[in-house]
């Protein structure tokens, strides 16, 4: 294999990503054990703290082993998909997380899609009419969207659309009378997805505008115009694809924003996703679930970063020519 070939590059990124995940896991473990009260005590908390009982639980959950052993055991098990057992929820961590994954994907995916659609559109318009009133207006709107606290916006939207107007539900993913099908979920998805998408949309507008502005002054655009191509065609078929490359690679970095926003939006809208699970497990000191969620989050970010690197390299016109 050539040293700078794609395969080697990918391999190196994967290895370094895995090392990173192991480090994050170890750090999470240290954090969790540093806090007062272990799982045995949480469990016993409901039933009393008879020392013999505590010792029994600790032996069963292997909490009496030294820390490096526990970390190694956890890494080994999680690589096989076993993230431990949550005594607070009474089920395996994998089930606790898996049960909420779909809801979060639905919310995040819809928000991302809305943000991308609206953001790219507005960004293109702003770049096209750069320096004008429309550009300024779009800038102001996007800056406002970037500055609004999602939890404030969420509660205002609920107060208006759910309580005052009764157009949309106040929260949850489905209606309680179980009649809900796809349409019911969409009905419930509307407000939280819009709220979550606004922040991301603002950023996408800015990035698209910059990238698009740069693309529009390139030679191939003037050439296309000189050949008599209509303005929309120039924008969409010539400039946009080249502008999207930096936009796409930057998008994967916004995962952190989605993860953060998800916790707040899911709380306000009582959406049964992973963000609320994180909040609930932090409050309930459900450390196995918390560790599992942090690991999942880190995995997503690392994967996104690797993907970004791969996309950047793959879409780089210089490497594509080889």
């Amino acid at each position, binding site marked *: 294999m050539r040293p700078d070939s794609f395969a080697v590059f990918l391999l190196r990124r994967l290895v370094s990503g895995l090392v*990173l995940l192991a480090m994050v896991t170890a750090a999470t473990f240290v954090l969790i054990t540093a806090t007062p009260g272990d799982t045995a005590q949480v469990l016993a908390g409901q039933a009393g703290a008879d020392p013999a009982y505590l010792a029994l639980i600790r032996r069963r959950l292997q909490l009496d082993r030294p820390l490096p052993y526990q970390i190694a055991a956890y890494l080994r098990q999680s690589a096989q998909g076993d993230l431990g057992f949550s005594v607070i929820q009474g089920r395996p961590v994998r089930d606790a997380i898996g049960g909420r994954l779909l809801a979060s994907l639905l919310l995040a995916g819809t928000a991302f899609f809305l943000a991308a659609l609206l953001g790219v559109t507005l960004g293109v318009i702003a770049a096209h009419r750069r320096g004008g009133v429309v550009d300024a207006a779009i800038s102001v709107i996007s*800056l406002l969207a970037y500055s609004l606290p999602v939890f404030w916006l969420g509660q205002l939207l609920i107060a208006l659309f759910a*309580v005052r107007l009764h157009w949309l539900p106040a929260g949850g993913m489905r209606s309680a009378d179980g009649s809900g099908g796809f349409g019911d979920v969409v009905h419930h998805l509307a407000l939280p997805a819009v709220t979550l998408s606004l922040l991301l949309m603002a950023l996408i507008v800015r990035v698209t505008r910059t990238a698009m502005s740069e693309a529009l002054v390139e030679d191939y655009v003037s050439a296309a115009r000189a050949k008599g191509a209509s303005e929309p065609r120039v924008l969409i078929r010539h400039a946009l694809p080249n502008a999207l490359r930096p936009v796409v690679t930057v998008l994967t970095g916004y995962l952190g924003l989605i993860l953060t926003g998800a916790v707040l939006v899911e709380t306000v809208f009582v959406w049964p996703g992973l963000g609320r699970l994180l909040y609930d497990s*932090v409050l309930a000191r459900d450390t196995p679930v918390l560790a599992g969620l942090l690991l999942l989050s880190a995995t997503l*970010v690392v994967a996104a970063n690797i993907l970004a690197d791969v996309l950047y390299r793959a879409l780089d016109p210089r490497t594509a020519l080889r």
Partner: protein
Amino acid sequence: MVGGLFLLAMVGATVLAALAAGDPFQPSETILRSPSRLHPLGTDELGRDILSRILSGAATTLKIAIVPPAVAAAVGTLVGLLAGYYGGLLDEVLLKLMEFTLVVPRFLIALVAAAFFGGHLWLVGLVLAATFWPSTARLVRAETISLREREFVAASRSLGASDGWILSRHLLLLVAPVVAVNSSFQAGQAALIEAGLAFLGVGDRNVVSWGAMLADAQSYLQVGWWTSVFPGIALASMVLALNLLGDGLADTWNVRGREAARG
């Protein structure tokens, strides 16, 4: 520079009004009163004057928006300069550290820390500073690497300037704009993070926080819209001002917006 002026106006108003306003913690029987002469922004569910609480909350927000980014700027600049200029082991370690801290979102780390160790303002500030400096360092490192090959650096060296001189006289001044822009955006983030933590109930209850006010207001939106609207406007305005400041600085000093906006 609209942002800068806006921000200055807010800070000034806070200071002035803090001298004049009532006690933000003084409860009374007049709960949930709408805005009036006596209480220009109304009272909350414990009869406290909302205007006083908004001003007190401004102090909290400013503390968290100024101090951690400033500390992060100092530490990040130092580390970034050294790593970029000298390369080698320091650079390797820095890169690994930066990757590590960027893997878990800042807010989640702060949430876990606040919930487990208590949401004291200084603890949140510490966590923020600890997660802000690596991204500042990364920016500074990148700038330093591109700057160190410039002719003026070689020229300085040939004139007998020490590394320390080059770093502190030339490079520091040249990276300052990037750091300033980056820190402005970090300040906005810090304000939102503190408010978010307070909203979720893991903030510091010994100070007034706009986020906590917004959380309490949820139950009273129907009977007291002022308990939610005014703190929300205050928070959005503060964050907006900080973002405008960052934007304004970026335009003034021609800093590349995209990188800096990442915070």
